[in-house]
């Protein structure tokens, strides 16, 4: 289960004030989760380590920009790590995602939803993910967990690009309206 916001907020606050001991605690509480996220997207330990280092240096320097009113600590940190990973994949010739690599990615593994169901804050998300059509859920999970692009999704799922894009788009909209039933639908 992910570390709680209540546990991380004071650590981030102290990190923002230059407290090394708090920063170390923050690292110990979050690094294995974030390393797992990075490793799954980058698929290479050395790259995931490099990204993790860059991100923690960035947390240290930008902890003051963290706004508890705007995002939970783990959301803030996870987003920074995922963005860094996705930017890394944009570098010229990252790990080639050939057919073999695509086969290795567990195709119908949206991540253990059971894990999300345990968390008080993530139970609704798990329920909404379960509520998606299987293909939408699979496409979203492969994109989120494994960092697949639309083209890679199409290749992996052996479907036309347009079809896959539609699954992703509809899945995301459905997820949003499930998470926020009151949110007004865009035209």
């Amino acid at each position, binding site marked *: *289960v*992910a570390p709680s916001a209540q546990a991380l*907020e*004071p650590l981030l*606050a102290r990190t*923002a*004030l*230059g407290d*090394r001991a*708090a920063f*170390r605690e923050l*690292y110990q509480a979050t*690094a*294995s*989760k974030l*390393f*797992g*996220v990075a490793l799954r997207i980058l698929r290479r330990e050395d790259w*995931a*380590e490099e990204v*993790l*280092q860059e991100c*923690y*240096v960035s947390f*240290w320097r930008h902890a*003051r920009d963290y706004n508890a009113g*705007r*995002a939970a600590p*783990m*959301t803030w940190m*996870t*987003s920074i790590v*995922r963005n860094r990973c*996705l930017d890394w994949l*944009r570098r010229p010739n990252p790990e080639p995602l050939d057919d073999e690599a695509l086969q290795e990615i567990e195709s119908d593994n949206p*991540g*253990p*939803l059971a894990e*999300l169901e345990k*968390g008080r804050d*993530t139970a609704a*998300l798990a329920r909404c*993910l379960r509520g998606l059509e299987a293909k939408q859920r699979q496409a*979203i*999970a492969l*994109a*989120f*967990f494994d*960092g*697949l*692009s*639309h083209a890679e999704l199409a290749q992996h799922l052996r479907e036309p690009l347009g079809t896959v894009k539609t699954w*992703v*788009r509809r899945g*995301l*909209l459905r*997820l*949003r309206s499930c998470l926020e039933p009151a949110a007004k639908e*865009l*035209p």
Partner: protein
Amino acid sequence: LNCRGKPELRERLAAEYVLGTLRGRARARLQRWLRDDAELAREVARWEARLAPMAGAVAPVSPSARVWQQIENRLGSPKKTFSLWKALGLMASGAAAALVAVALLLPLLQPGSAAYIAVLSDPKTNQPVLVATADAKGTVLRVNTLNPAIHVADRSLELWALPRGGQPRSLGLVSREERGTLKLAAAADKSLSDVPALAISLEPRGGSPTGQPTGPVLYTGPCVKYW
């Protein structure tokens, strides 16, 4: 080319950016827009709040110990880093109370602007009892009482600036409210720049009749500039 005025497209791009399927030039272009399109940035933040918790389902993997070592190396020597935490002497005090102090303190600090901060503690317990902050160019001293039990019936608590090599200067009476404000005689950069410490004395109701502390000094603490 941009996506202003196209809410449906903006939402789709923000969602796909966060999910990670937006790649290459499209991703770089969205990142450029994000720099000066605050509403688009909020849309991205909303999608991050929705999707990031999915990461809770990813199996944790412990990184090698060298990762932390390299992070530490990249932060540079800790001695060079000004630690407000240490400057305020909170290291030695009770962790829980110190956390309360910092939790109160942080929202008051505007990133990029300098501020003065004083944390006054009870010398007997080493627990912080009161935090005072002021923006460097402001004349308002915000006073947060952490421990309401410091107040004494029928007496007043008076807050003093203790200037380097000078007489204590009254800053006013500590409000019985949890959060109060006091007016500084001049901008904090003038009135607090040469004040390494603040103190609280117990005074007759209404404050010291002499302009100098007359009762016992109950609480003191360092006052530092932070930016």
